[in-house]
Every structure is written in structure tokens, then in C-alpha cells.
């Protein structure tokens, strides 16, 4: 019988079935990455990480997925499980980076200059002022300034409110899916969304008054 070259493994100890299982696992991880890496990158930006941090966050999330994929038991949808891993990982990542390195600058808000961490795809860098003058109407600039202000307010929310609001308002998830991703009761999700809205409105108001 001809050996199946696909069944060879580096260590020579794994059986053909084991090697096939490994390849199936690697293929599954590859498919997951292709389907979800862009979505998790978007989630990271929505949660307030900047572009570089979001890329680092995606890396961390999928390495964690690779380590934990064996613990996925199929009680929840794979996407829900993946988002749960992502939310927890990005929360830790954010805790390590954002608060230490990027406190909200009210002077930046007042001048309307972009904050590195606003997560939007707006232009940045030394040419920004010129570009803005040339290409953007006063209305566009106003929208941009408002987005900085909203980001600053979101950054001041505690993670549980920010996450609930992001999943509802920016990811468009249902209460039930949010409950599954955050691993809390649906009533808790409803309460966090409501309280998050109240707090966000208060923070926005206080920032505006401070300007």
C-alpha cells in the first residue's frame, strides 16, 4: 500500500488520523481568521482602541482562540463564543494600553484636532489642517469634532456600560446575543444599556460645559 504523503507528520509519532485532525483544526482556525479578523478589528476600534492597538488586539484574540478552540463545546454559536473571547481579550488589552497612554485631552477637543485614539478613519498628521481646510466643509469639521467629543465621553464610561452600548448601537446585536457574548442575564444587559445611555448623556453634557 502506498503511504499517503499527506499523513506524514514532522515528529513521526502522530498517527494519520491525528495529523488529519491537526490539519482540520488549522484549517478551521484559518477559516475563522479569514471570516472574523476584520470584524474583530472593527469591534476593537468601536471599543476605543486606536488602529495599531486594534491590530495588536486581533493578534491577541486569535492566538487565544487557537489555544482555547478545544474548549468550545458548541452550546453557543461559534461566533458568539469568538466575540466573548474577543471582548474579554480586548478589555484586558485596553486596560493595559489606553488608560495609561492616552488620557483625554480637553485642549485637543477644544481645538478640534484629531485624537490618535478616536478609532475613525479620519486623516491625521501634520497635513491634516491643510487637508481639512481644502477638502472639508465647516459641517464636516463639526461632525469630526463631535466624533472626538463622543469618543472622549465613551472613554470615560466604565467598560461594562461601554461594551453594552457598543454591542447594541454599533454592532447592532440583540439583547439576547449581547447577554450571551457578555455572559450575563438579559435583564443585566437591558439595565447596562439604559444606565449607559444615561451616563453617556451626562458625560457629554459635562464635557461640553467644560469646553
Amino acid at each position: 500500500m502506498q503511504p499517503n504523503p499527506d499523513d506524514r507528520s514532522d515528529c513521526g509519532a502522530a498517527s494519520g488520523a491525528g495529523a488529519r485532525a491537526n490539519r482540520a483544526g488549522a484549517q478551521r482556525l484559518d477559516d475563522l481568521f479569514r471570516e472574523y479578523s476584520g470584524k474583530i478589528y472593527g469591534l476593537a476600534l468601536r471599543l476605543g482602541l486606536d488602529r495599531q492597538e486594534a491590530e495588536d488586539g486581533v493578534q491577541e484574540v486569535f492566538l487565544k482562540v487557537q489555544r482555547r478552540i478545544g474548549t468550545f463545546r458548541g452550546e453557543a454559536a461559534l461566533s458568539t463564543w469568538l466575540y466573548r473571547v474577543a471582548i474579554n481579550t480586548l478589555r484586558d488589552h485596553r486596560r493595559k494600553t489606553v488608560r495609561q497612554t492616552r488620557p483625554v485631552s480637553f485642549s485637543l477637543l477644544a481645538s478640534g484636532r484629531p485624537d490618535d485614539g478616536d478609532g475613525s478613519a479620519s486623516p491625521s498628521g501634520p497635513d491634516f489642517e491643510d487637508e481639512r481646510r481644502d477638502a472639508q466643509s465647516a459641517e464636516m469639521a463639526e461632525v469630526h469634532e463631535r466624533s472626538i467629543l463622543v469618543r472622549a465621553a465613551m472613554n470615560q464610561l466604565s467598560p461594562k456600560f461601554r461594551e453594552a452600548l457598543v454591542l447594541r448601537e454599533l454592532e447592532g446585536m440583540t439583547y439576547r446575543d449581547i447577554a450571551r457574548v457578555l455572559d450575563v442575564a438579559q435583564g443585566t444587559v437591558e439595565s447596562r444599556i439604559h444606565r449607559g445611555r444615561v451616563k453617556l448623556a451626562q458625560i457629554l453634557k459635562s464635557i461640553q460645559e467644560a469646553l
Partner: protein
Amino acid sequence: MNDPCKKWLPRLMAWFDDEASELDAKEVRAHLLDCAPCRAAVQSWRELRLDLSLLQPDEPTEEVLERMAWRFEEGLADEIHSTSTALRWWGRLAAALMIGLGGLLIAERTVMPLAGTVEASTPREIEEAVQEILQRPVELMPLAPERPVPSGR
């Protein structure tokens, strides 16, 4: 929002977030027609929704997606390398322990049948091999017949 309207809050929110049944939605709309505080609450949520929509990022570019895929492959390769190195070291440690354990058993029981070698490369296999050895029946070597004590005569 005044107190009588607080009981409306969960239904109002469910309606605003597209979570209400058709019947509930109808009742909420009827209430909103009559209730200015609830209309104000809904209006404030609408303004927040509009504000939050400003944070909606663009789709990642192909360049970003490719860079992330490349970095992930690199990270995965590093991870597999460090895992196999760790496993190799654990394997060596376990093998050393087994040799020590084997030596002890030989010393204790005079002889220990070492039929065949144990092939184990992962911590789990090593653990199973150790368990298997420990569960082997103790086969003591027949002791040499006692020599009669020389009479000295």
C-alpha cells in the same frame, strides 16, 4: 421621565431597540402620542444613537487585513515553537523522574520487570506510562534457598 412613566421604561426601550412585539410596539406608540416625558426620553436616545454612529469605523483595507493575517501566522509559528520546546523539556524532566522512580522500585522490590521500553513524548503519555508501571503486579524474584548456618564445627 416622571414616576408613572417609569413602568413604561422597559417597554419603551425594547421598542426603541427593535425588541418589542408588534402588539407592544402598538401600545408604546399610543403612549408616546400622549406622553411628553416619554417622547423626550426617546428623543434623547435618538440623539445619542446619532452621536454614537459617528464612531462607526470604515471597513479595514486589504492592506490591514493582509498585515494582520501575516502577523497572525508569525505569532502562531512562534507559539507552536515555544509549546514544542516546553513539551520537550517536560518530557525530559518526566523521563528523568521515571528513571529515578524505576531505580527506587528495583531497590525496594529486589527486581522490577522491565519488559519493553516505554515510548512517551507528551506529558499525558508520560503520565499514563507512569501509571501503567505503577499498576504492574509486583513479581518478586524467588529468593535463594537459605543456606544452612555453618556449624562452625
